[in-house]
């Protein structure tokens, strides 16, 4: 099992940026008013921040990173690791992390690479960065996680369009011998890779004219093969099957119980999934924050965005034990147990 603890690395700060433009699901006239009401109530998304055409995830992460570095008073030439976790990169080639290294003015001694994960990306990125830093050679790192999902969803697909919002985040990590260890439980089941998929445009199905043909799949679901396809029931059952055992195994491994956790921050999948998981774990609502209502499902950004928008005061002022849990596309999922102490956390930026 990929259950492990990493000592010596702490979170120094977290920041997030979202596009200024907001869309409201109450105005989503592709579906009936009754269905809109049910969607807002059960899926839990009232509004979503949507990027203008041409704005990339790296633009959002860049803005958040500049803001965070200024607040931290970190010198750019001290940063030796940059990881960009996303499924919406700037170009097919090259890697977005390289572009960000230069754009942020980070030194050539900085190693930079992308990780291509979505919903589970924050947990994976955190474990990768911390793992590379734990022996103390790399002392400062930036982990950028986010997605622009709204360019691959289409208005005439009610299963994706009203769900996803755009966001970019950055987490500053530093080597700190006294830091409490971060613990992780990471898992994968690629047999479910079709549950969330964009069929064409990769190397398996190279883009053709047919990729643009719109087909009706069921009532209210029309899309082409370059749009994101979501099998709601499959993702739902996967989440209900895997997330709770994954968390319980991490708690057992670390000898921590849920009463010792200040907040459980879930990937913001949808309200029905998250509330069912919360009830399965018997966690009180006040300990499980949501950014879903205002920002929608923001893919890999959802865990750090929820921290910045819902727990900012607590992160700045105190010491927290946080349980993070993220799950989805891949299928890929994981949980992390981390401690934070008076971190730098500027308010979410709108750009």
């Amino acid at each position, binding site marked *: 099992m990929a259950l492990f603890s990493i000592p010596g690395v702490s979170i120094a700060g977290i920041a997030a940026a979202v596009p200024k433009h907001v869309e409201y699901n109450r105005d989503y006239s592709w579906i009936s008013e009754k*269905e809109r009401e049910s969607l807002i109530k059960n899926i839990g998304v009232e509004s979503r921040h949507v990027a203008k055409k041409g704005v990339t995830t790296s633009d959002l992460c860049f803005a958040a990173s500049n803001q965070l570095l200024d607040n931290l008073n970190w010198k750019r030439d001290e940063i030796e690791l940059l990881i960009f976790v996303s499924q919406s990169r700037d170009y097919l080639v090259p890697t977005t992390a390289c572009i960000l290294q230069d754009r942020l003015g980070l030194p050539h001694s900085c190693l930079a690479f992308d990780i291509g994960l979505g919903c589970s990306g924050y947990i994976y990125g955190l474990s990768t960065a911390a793992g590379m830093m734990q022996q103390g050679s790399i002392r400062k790192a930036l982990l950028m996680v986010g997605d622009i999902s709204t360019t691959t969803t289409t208005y005439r697909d009610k299963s994706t369009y009203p769900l996803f919002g755009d966001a970019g985040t950055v987490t500053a990590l530093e080597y700190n011998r006294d830091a409490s260890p971060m613990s992780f439980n990471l898992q994968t089941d690629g047999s479910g890779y079709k549950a969330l998929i964009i069929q064409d445009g990769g190397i398996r199905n190279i883009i053709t004219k047919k990729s643009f043909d719109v087909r009706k799949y069921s009532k209210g679901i029309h899309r082409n093969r370059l749009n994101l396809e979501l099998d709601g029931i499959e993702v739902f059952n996967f989440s209900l099957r895997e997330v709770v055992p994954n968390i319980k195994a991490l708690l057992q491994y670390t000898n921590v119980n849920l009463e010792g956790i200040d907040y459980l921050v879930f990937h913001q999948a949808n309200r029905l999934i998250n509330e069912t998981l919360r009830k399965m774990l018997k966690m009180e609502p006040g300990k499980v924050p949501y950014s879903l209502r205002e920002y929608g499902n923001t893919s890999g950004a959802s865990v750090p965005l929820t921290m910045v928008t819902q727990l900012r005061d607590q992160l700045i002022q105190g010491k927290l034990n946080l349980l993070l849990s993220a799950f989805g596309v891949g299928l890929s999922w994981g949980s992390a147990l981390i401690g934070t102490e008076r971190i730098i956390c500027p308010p979410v930026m709108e750009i």
Partner: protein
Amino acid sequence: MNMDIQNFIIKIEGEFEDLKPGLLKPDSKFRDAFDWNSINALILIALIKTEYNVTLTANDLIKSKTIKDIYTIVETRFQK
């Protein structure tokens, strides 16, 4: 917990606001009984998972017509 179809129906009626109590019967076709859509499918799946720890798949729903059809699947998989 014992399985019982009346109890199963009461739980479903409690979850869906559209349903007037007492109208849903074992042989009611669930697609006609209330405004059936993918969100309601998820609500039903969530209810069955939390109440009975039984997973209902998309295929189970496709194969089922009545409340009793779904109840039978849940009853078969339910472990006392």
